[in-house]
């Protein structure tokens, strides 16, 4: 794969991530605080954990551009997971952990 193709692929991945973030971030803050909500927020966490494990597989033998892109994606996913966990604590009434 040449540099242009890698950049194109990285751009596409970042675009997808942004869409995910917009969709799931909005969802995270608007869902009602009930049992169903816990399942949904847990789903968000699982979703990003799954993405992270997929991105991890791109690191082996990666050149500098791909490596940095993957790290950026994973940092974004970590923030989303942290946010979702915070929402989960709020749902469960654990304000201290939520903050």
């Amino acid at each position: 794969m040449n540099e242009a193709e890698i950049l194109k692929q990285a751009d596409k991945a970042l675009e997808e991530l942004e869409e995910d973030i917009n969709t799931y971030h909005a969802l995270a803050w608007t869902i009602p605080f009930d049992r169903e909500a816990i399942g949904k927020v847990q789903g968000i966490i699982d979703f990003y954990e799954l993405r992270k494990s997929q991105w991890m597989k791109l690191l082996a033998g990666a050149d500098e551009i791909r490596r940095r892109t993957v790290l950026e994606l994973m940092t974004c996913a970590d923030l989303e997971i942290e946010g979702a966990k915070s929402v989960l604590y709020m749902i469960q009434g654990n304000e201290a952990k939520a903050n």
Partner: protein
Amino acid sequence: MPSEDTNLDKYLNYSGPDQVVTSFELDDILKQSNEHAVCVKSKMPTLDRLLEGFESGELIAISGPRKSGKTLFAQSLTVNFLPTKSLWFSYEVTLKQFLRTFPELPLFMSPLKLKAYSLPWLKERILEALFKHGIGVVFIDHLHFLFDLVRARNTSLEIGQVVRFLKTLAIDYNLIIFLLCHMRKVDLTEEPTDADVRDSSLVSSESDTGLIMWRLVDTENQTIVKVAYSRRTGVLDKKFKVAKINGLLREVQNE
């Protein structure tokens, strides 16, 4: 109230990383993940022809009697695999000695200090090298530094656990892992087999490829490398000759 095992919704709507899929779906998923698979060539023509290179997710066992050239062979692969970067765990010789044995220092990664008998530590350093440098290959020299022989209750089973742990790491992170193993005392006049790997037959049953090396006693610097088995290509017991040339092992033609 439906019992757990007759809760249709739970099973019909289940999706997750471990969900059951059809062979066609599986094929599609594997094709997509193959786009990012690492495949490296040894630049030893016979080996590359027999194995079609080394692929990510594979665990390769290199075994042979002491002084058969296992470490030098692995060092030669490190050089030949570039630009794919390797991470080295050189337990057997000091880092200073290890660096000096390269005729010209190539790029590879290594922890500053090594910790024996700790698989969690090994995994942490592999992930560090993956994040920091995007390594594709890992060399571990050698197996018996990964578990404590003194404390081991059942050496063979513990080696099996270590080997399975490494195989899982290779698959999870798309890495190629080379594991160097000693052999029990073998008669140097006879050709060694994978059954001679010290303490465990589980090494050969859990690894994808087994390479066995032994020195030719009647020559100064020649070694035989045997591809004892390769699960991917189905090769069994094929041999070629290597010799130390300019400080590294290179394939030589049979005379």
